[in-house]
């Protein structure tokens, strides 16, 4: 199963990178979302996976009974998910704003629109 998941992660990365390399802003945005999905999954998987037992201590016990899923990567991924949610929302707003100010989705047009203010002239 780990190998299958690793391939899935690879697939997600491939899709994300392909999207990020497009000229269209909205595609880049989707690429970034996929990238963070892939990364979250990577953290989750590479620290090892187990089925079923969630890291919740049962009502009658004081310590977590074995076997259990590693709680730390879960906490990390949760943090990462929330952070990337914030970043995504911001990036979305930025894309929208950029689109509104340049009226194009094409990054190359954005470049030429900003000529004189951007890069070498």
């Amino acid at each position, binding site marked *: 199963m780990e190998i299958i998941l690793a391939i899935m992660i690879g697939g997600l990365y491939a899709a994300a990178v392909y999207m990020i390399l497009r000229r269209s802003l909205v595609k880049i945005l989707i690429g970034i979302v996929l990238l963070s999905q892939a990364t979250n999954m990577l953290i989750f998987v590479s620290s090892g996976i187990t089925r079923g037992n*969630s890291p*919740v201590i049962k009502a009658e016990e004081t310590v977590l009974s074995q076997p259990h899923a590693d709680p730390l990567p879960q906490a990390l991924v*949760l943090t990462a998910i*929330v952070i990337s949610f914030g970043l995504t*929302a911001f990036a979305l*707003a930025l894309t*929208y704003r950029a689109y509104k100010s340049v009226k194009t989705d094409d990054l190359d047009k954005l470049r030429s629109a900003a000529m004189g203010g951007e890069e070498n002239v």
Partner: protein
Amino acid sequence: MNSFILRVTIRYLLPLLLLFSIYTFLRGHNEPGGGFAAGLIAAASLSLYTIAYGAKRARQVLSIDPRFLIGSGLLLALISGLIPILMGKPFLSGVWLKIPIPRNTPFDIGTPFFFDLGVFFVVAGVTLMFVFIFEEEI
């Protein structure tokens, strides 16, 4: 979206969802849930309301500026971390009080609880802010 059914459904769903959010929050320490999920659920409920009635009405329902919600949430989390400093412990150390509940195991309340509450406010506030602004400006 001017669906009548949606509007009516949401009007009744809203209190339920908010209640569910509080439940998620409270059980979060012992069962899956907690400040993040609860904040998101609370925000989701108001988001649905926003979709149905628009951001203006939703803001009225919320009655405070989301920025205030965010700020106070952050402040709450920060202060809950500062309390142990006053007691000479490192920042964010847990300070616990046992609240005896008759005929039951005592309920532990401590600074992490308030910290989680801060998280709840921030997550709810931020998500609502996203939704409101996207609704209003886009």
